[in-house]
């Protein structure tokens, strides 16, 4: 992870889970469709504006004349495209919501303005989440105070973290590295500082790391 390349010009976001390329696939399809629609409609607008500008000699006979059922076409075409995108997105959304059995569970508590993390082995950490690569991981999350949200752009995943109940987020990381983590549900003064990193490591390394005697965890807000 090149956190060093922070010159303000970095227009890429790493892709580090099994779901991330699928989300990107739909995202870029939408970009392509939108670009096509924008270009087509703007081209038509500009063409008509030039050709039919006041005073031009363009043929305007039958301007209000009978037409094909063109409105039926432009209801049907977007509708069909939208339904295809809906189904595609629904399949992915269901995947995001459906963890496989036998996930490695990690427990996370959000509070103003820090993330507290506890691993199955008992090891704890703050504002850093070590996760194993290549196996399904499920984050079981709750909040001690207000609503927070756990967002890792490189994973293309986000989940609100609520007080009084558990929410879960599952993923399978594909690339070792250190990825930024942010709170994205506004939670008060230091909302923009409630972040940290997710550290993806090979499974054996993770096992070893998790089994180590945890260094003392100090509970102080990240700043």
């Amino acid at each position, binding site marked *: 992870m090149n956190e060093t390349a922070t010159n303000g010009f970095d227009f890429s976001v790493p892709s580090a889970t099994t779901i991330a390329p699928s989300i990107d696939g739909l995202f870029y399809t939408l970009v392509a469709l*939108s670009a096509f629609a924008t270009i087509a409609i703007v081209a038509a607008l500009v063409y008509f504006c030039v050709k039919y500008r006041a*005073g031009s000699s363009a043929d305007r006979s039958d*301007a209000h004349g009978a037409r094909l059922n063109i409105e039926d076409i432009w209801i049907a075409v977007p509708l069909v495209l*939208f339904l295809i995108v809906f189904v595609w997105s629904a399949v992915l959304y269901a995947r995001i919501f459906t963890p496989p059995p036998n996930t490695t569970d990690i427990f996370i508590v959000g509070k103003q303005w820090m993330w507290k993390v506890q691993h199955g082995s008992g090891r704890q950490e703050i504002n850093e989440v070590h996760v194993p690569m290549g196996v399904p991981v499920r984050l079981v999350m709750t909040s001690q105070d207000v609503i927070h949200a756990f967002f890792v752009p490189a994973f293309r995943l986000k989940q609100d973290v609520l007080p009084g109940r558990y929410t879960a987020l599952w993923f399978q990381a594909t690339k070792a590295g250190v990825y930024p983590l942010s709170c994205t549900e506004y939670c008060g*003064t230091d909302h923009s*500082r409630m972040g940290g990193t997710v550290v993806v490591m090979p499974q054996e390394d993770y096992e070893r790391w998790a089994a180590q005697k945890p260094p003392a965890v100090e509970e102080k807000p990240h700043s």
Partner: protein
Amino acid sequence: MSERSFLNDGVTLRSWLITRDHKRIAILFSIAITAFFFVGGLAATWIRIELATPKGDVVSADTYNKLFTIHGIVMVWFFLIPSIPTTLGNFLLPIMIGARDLAFPRLNLASFYIYILGGIFTLITVIAGGVDTGWTFYTPYSTMFSNSYVLLAAAGVFIVGFSSIFTGLNFIVTVHTMRAPGMKWFRMPLFVWAMYSTSIVMVLATPVLAMVLALIAIERIAGIGIFDPALGGDPILFQHLFWFYSHPAVYIMVLPAMGVVSEIITCFARKKIFGYKFMVYAIAAIGVIGFMVWGHHMFVSGQSMYSGLVFSLLSFLVAVPSAIKVFNWTATLYKGSISFEAPMIYALGFVGLFLIGGLTGLFLAAAAVDVHLTQTYFVVAHFHYIMVGGAVMAYLGGIHYWWPKITGRLYHERSAQLSAALMFCGFNLTFFPQFLLGYLGMPRRYHEYADRFQMLNVLSSAGAVILALAYVAPLVYLTWSLFRGERAPANPWHAKGLEWTVSSPPPTHNFAHPPTVPDEPYSYSPESR
């Protein structure tokens, strides 16, 4: 002024402040919402200055949070929602249907003073020290954790809601009961249809906002558990109630804009609007389906997967009528005889920005993509394209289009054309980079951000400077025109519609003789230019 008009029928301040003339009330509203627009704009300017650098070096985190909150509250409830209905709607709706006034003139004046009262609460909130919940007032932060003036701000919003309801009610009754002979439903201008549909949404949705704000007050004051789980409440319940109002509220902002743009495009293309009936059905469909999509704000909130899927599907469906409208505006230009006076430039700018706003809405309707994009700058960019690129461009287009009618004066055309073009460019420079920021993962409502996002933020802030100039410019040349502008004829654009048959500015009683409407609207022809 040579003729008697509503403007010189009584010149005392008192004659303005207790007027029941819909046209004068429209002017009172326009002054008030303009003032609030610049209050909200000042907050936005401050935000963009802070975001020019990644560090929080201009204001403190708390101040920043209060700035984006007041920006949202003021722009949504004190500018965007009342903008077109209370000004252009108030002024034009009765004239466009051939009526003498709105059905309830006193209620109309009450709507204005309720708006002012709500506005006073909001200004007091700012002076007292501000509110930091975001305009969305999410619980339990707003009820149990925020140390700012939540109740004062909520009271302002609660109160101004009644202004919406009164105006909406007034419009509905007026359209049903006061149409001139021959003004059948399908002869109504699309602007009237848009006002009618918007009014229904206002009357049905706003009470839910009032309820949810009252529930916040109950939890915050009495500690009765409604939303905070620590007290036995459910924070998701708040989101459902809030968005049940606040999503339709988007249509309260954009339906009137669509109405204005339909009037302008057909006039300057000299061509009957393409597919009038489809346009009407599209307005109605947006109004109805718009009530059933609120859950698309909550795809990662913890609501069930199945709810998410249903809301996703409905959100795609609501995009269809919007697409129809864009196609029909484009088709209206076909074989027209198009000229590019300022209102037309604003209207074409609206179509372009609304197109991008609408298409990016599809990204957010696709639930799986929304999981990545929601709560980031992508969403900020998307809704600014709809509400600022869309609704504000249309509002200003409408103000320019009907300015000669309302004031009896002509503004400096070239200045107006230039500022419309400047606004379009400044807007895109401000908000387009935010789509990229969102995809790259920059969360919204962030006082500080990672260094890698700086480049795009600097572009956005630079665009905001241009945008600010483009918003100040009309204030200058329109004000100038009030005193020095050429006198306007009754129908400077050679437009169709009853409002152009009366003098500019219109007489107090609108019509000397009640008009009759023999025909369908928009009998333009490209040959007639």
